[in-house]
């Protein structure tokens, strides 16, 4: 029993990371209806920038971190302006594929500048583990967990109450109608990409502290899909909880498969199988907005 409790706690801990990345994903989707397959690469880009600033240019971490955020804003602006703005109003699959293309470009740019070697972050957070219910947990994970909780609260309030937040949701639903309200949709898009890039960069810095970075950090983006889809693409709560749920469930499934069937490597698949089962019951995820269909 203790084994399963530990699996759950470990799942929550890893799920915190998923939630963090998923939040950035949902911000973009909520404001622009873009399904971003390059989310993992945005995380990677942020991580590398911070790495370059701290290690290669020896800037103190705090300053480097702030500069990373500034850079992320610029990256968000650039991506929106160059890649996504021309595709406003195009089909689902076109937008998906453009983000797929973007992920390749980002990956190879990182390879060009920093090569394929693993790069090691200077330790920013303490490494001494904290024991929770008998399971030692590294502070890095706690930081990720806390951060995703804070971001969730901030974004929820932002989308519910702030004028810009509401305008973002309006824009996502109907761009032209939003324009007719005097909402500058280009600014809205740019802003949402900036927010997503900043969130991703923060996630990247935290991830870098876990096990260094290399040009394949972007793989994490794939793990985020079960989380966001499970929660519902446009739901912040869904992203936050979805990440945790997927973290726990994949751990439990993996544990069960390992113990009773002797199957290894089930973890990667487990998340997706759970996802499909849940989608068959709730086609818009646990908290997603159901599309209103009128005929």
């Amino acid at each position, binding site marked *: 029993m203790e084994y399963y409790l530990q699996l759950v706690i470990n799942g929550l801990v890893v799920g915190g990371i998923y939630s963090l990345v998923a939040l950035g994903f949902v911000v973009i989707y909520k404001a622009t209806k873009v*399904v971003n397959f390059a989310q993992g690469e945005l995380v990677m880009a942020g991580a590398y920038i911070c790495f370059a600033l701290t290690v290669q240019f020896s800037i103190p971490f705090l300053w480097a971190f702030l500069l990373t955020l500034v850079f992320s804003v610029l990256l968000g602006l650039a991506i929106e302006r160059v*890649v996504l703005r*021309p*595709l406003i109003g*195009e089909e*689902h*699959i*076109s937008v*998906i*594929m*453009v983000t*797929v*293309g*973007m*992920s*390749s*470009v980002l*990956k*190879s*740019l990182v*390879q*060009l500048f920093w*090569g*394929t070697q693993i790069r090691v972050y200077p330790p920013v957070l303490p490494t001494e583990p904290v024991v929770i219910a008998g399971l030692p947990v590294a502070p890095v994970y706690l930081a990720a967990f806390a951060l995703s909780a804070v971001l969730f609260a901030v974004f929820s309030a932002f989308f519910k109450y702030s004028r810009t937040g509401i305008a973002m949701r309006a824009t996502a639903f109907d761009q032209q109608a939003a324009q007719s309200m005097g909402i500058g949709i280009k600014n809205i898009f740019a802003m949402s990409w900036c927010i997503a890039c900043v969130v991703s960069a923060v996630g990247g810095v935290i991830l870098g502290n876990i096990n260094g970075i290399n040009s394949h950090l972007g793989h994490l983006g*794939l793990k985020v*899909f*079960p989380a966001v*889809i499970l929660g519902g*693409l446009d739901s912040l709560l869904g992203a936050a909880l979805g990440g945790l749920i997927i973290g726990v469930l994949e751990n439990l499934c993996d544990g069960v498969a390992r113990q009773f069937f002797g*199957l290894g*490597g*089930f973890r*990667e*698949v487990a998340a*997706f*199988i759970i*996802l*499909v089962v849940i*989608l*068959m019951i709730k*086609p*818009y*995820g646990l908290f997603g907005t159901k599309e209103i*269909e009128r*005929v």
Partner: protein
Amino acid sequence: MQGKCGLFFTSYRGEAQIFQSGFQKLMVGLFMLALLAAPLALNIHETSVMNLVFIAVIGAVALNLLTGVCGQISLGHGAFIGVGAYAAGQCTLNGVPFPLAILTAGLITAMVGMVFGVPSLRLKGIYLAIATLAAQLVLEFVFLHGGALTGGSSGLLLDPPVILGFVFDTEARMYYLLLFFAAAALLMVANIMRSRYGRAFVSIRDYYLSAEIVGVNLFWFKLVAFGVSSFLAGVSGGLWAHYTGYISAEQFNIGLSISYLAMIIIGGMGSVLGSVFGAVFVVLMPEALNAVANSLSAVFPGIAQSLVALREGVFGLVLILFLIFEPEGLVNRWRLVKAYWKLYPFAH
């Protein structure tokens, strides 16, 4: 299919033909002749590239039928191709004749595809896309843990195809075999597209609610789309398996699925010709890049290294540029070029 100016039909059947004018038929005939003669002029490497193109054409037209025509995005086609590869491999390893093995592979893949198409009953758009991504990962897992069936982590070694004692063990021989299959696949999809099945698929893509009202059984036709598409993907996989002679789980990863999606987007969604263009483009692009890298490195030594890092990026960049500047795909450019020459020299 809009009849061009000056082309009059005396029967409905004439209007439903794939190639409508005599000139078109002539050009297609000449092109086929050129294709048949090509191995005489090409060296082995170029022939092998053509062979990869043919395999890709089958896979691309399969995916285009499902995604471009029927509107069901699939991120699992790489794995479906894998199912075909393993199925065909197991067949020939167990002594089934090659043509039968390919057919069996197609049917088995069709079945697997239909199983993974079941979520399309309730899921739409991106949600379905992610469900097919699940299919991709689940199948990859099965490939790796399939034991003797898939050779597990060490994969399967296969012999070249044999038909009635004739061994297809050179590039040129494979060329004709693959050309035949590619042409057959294209004809098959072109026929489906001008029949009630094709129209039903498009109706599901364009407005599924009214498709249902005109009597299209949504679930069944989505399943059929998954089935036919997977069938062809399976055939493509079976051919790939026997062409390369070795299959392992990692050949059929998510990257393969994505490159097939790239093919149909670059070529043109929902178009048979577009699938061909896309397959040609995506297969030739790395070859072209290598050639550029090689010729550049003669002038600027050391640049090849950077170009290697950039190759994946160039692929992504090309994809982005296409989506921005030619969202309708190469086939649209082709139509414009054709329209231009039709009016030449009076175009302005």
